[in-house]
């Protein structure tokens, strides 16, 4: 089923919208023009994950050194801070834990999520 989220101009880069769709709601995110849609349900404990901070994560560059990467591409759960890749829904630490993602595209100026 296709769901019309909103007009594209209503979701400018850096913003998000939670759709009252599915069992838990669906979060639609605009990251610098790229759109992502994820279930508002954390696979860890069921928190409303789409209310979390949009952030980045770290990667080791040798002992006691780390680099910041994927800034703006990480969704951090508002409860326990699990980090998920906005694009794939995969947990950074345990990639087998995945937030469900939905295909999303723009059609005649509308953001459309495929449920």
């Amino acid at each position, binding site marked *: 089923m296709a769901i019309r989220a909103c007009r594209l101009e209503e979701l400018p880069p850096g913003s998000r919208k939670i759709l009252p769709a599915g069992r838990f709601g669906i979060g639609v995110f605009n990251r610098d023009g790229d759109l992502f849609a994820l279930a508002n349900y954390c696979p860890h*404990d*069921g*928190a*409303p994950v789409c*209310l*979390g*901070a949009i952030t980045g994560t770290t990667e080791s560059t040798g002992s006691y050194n780390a680099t910041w990467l994927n800034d703006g591409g990480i969704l*951090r759960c*508002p*409860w*326990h*801070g699990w980090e998920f890749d906005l694009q794939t829904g995969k947990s950074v630490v345990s990639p087998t834990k995945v937030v469900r993602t939905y295909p999303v595209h723009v059609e005649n100026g509308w953001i459309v999520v495929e449920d």
Partner: protein
Amino acid sequence: MNDILPIIDCDVHPAPKSPTELLDYLPDRYQGKLAEMLKGWFRMNRGTGVFTGFGALATGMRRDAMPEMGPGGSDPALMEQQLLKDAGVTYAILIPLTVTGMANPEHEAAMCAATNAWLADKWLGEYNKHGRYRGSIMVCPDVPEAAVEEIERWAKHDGFVQVMIPPMARSAYGLPQYFPIFEAAARHGLPVGIHINRTPGMSLLSPVGFVSYYFEFHPQYTLYYFPHVASLVLSGVFARLPDLRFVLVEGGVSWLTPYMWRLDHYWQQFGSEVPWLDRPPSDYIRKQVLVTTQPLERPKETRRLHEYLDWMGSEHMVLFSTDYPHWDYDHPEPTLKRLPSAVRNRFAFENAAHLYGFADLSGSSASPLRPAVVS
């Protein structure tokens, strides 16, 4: 599941809306210094630049539990919505964290007194029309006389159901200077709770020096409880006060099982050093020590946790807790599912109802159970 299972949440943190709210309850002589300190605490809590500890997530709060104004846990409407409605908690035991371990015990005692008066007015009064909140009498253990005074002041207030101390004391709690506090608590049928608190300075010290990361610090909360438990048992506090109950909040559950094994093992060798114990240490612990669930350990195979609970003889020893509104909050539904079904209701409700003197909801008794604690 939450619709049918009554829940007593034994670890909930209300906060003042602003420093002024708490300052109103402090005597004039403390206004200046404590005002500065309180402002610091608020800055820390709002995450606006001053944080002397480690980088807890979202300044330690569940991100969705931050009200429009003020720190997490300061908005009674939001707490009612998230904890009592969304999470399905029936009763909440409130533990304010306005009193961190301070360098100066008299100041700490003054903060405790102010917090108790504030809690009685607001969260056990104005915000408690539904009657679902109970409070903790905060005391500073290193000023025992003031602590006993606070217990005497609030023990008869229906809303207060336990005495609360931090684990960051100057000595282990079996030492004689603390005994009057426990004696007063036992006299009033009040359990003594210990809750971890983050403070800068020496209290971040582990037995092998200072920790480097918040990640390193958090799992080590349990370390604060090892010495207190041994000290309370071996110094004979539990033997002298058989009605005293100790609640170890937020320090984990499963560690206590092998610790009891170790204590019992050495009792064979060193029992003559503590001849006032007439039973193995684990007997005192099983009868007089309780632990709260959050943050519940999560082995990959849940049955391993069940084994530890079983070995512990934990039927009467475990209380459910969420730690709302903190970031490491345990939501009731998934957490209770991880507990053995045979004791789930005990952990979720019955043990706490018994300990804190809630009326039996089953209707068989309308009178509070306190102080007829588990025997």
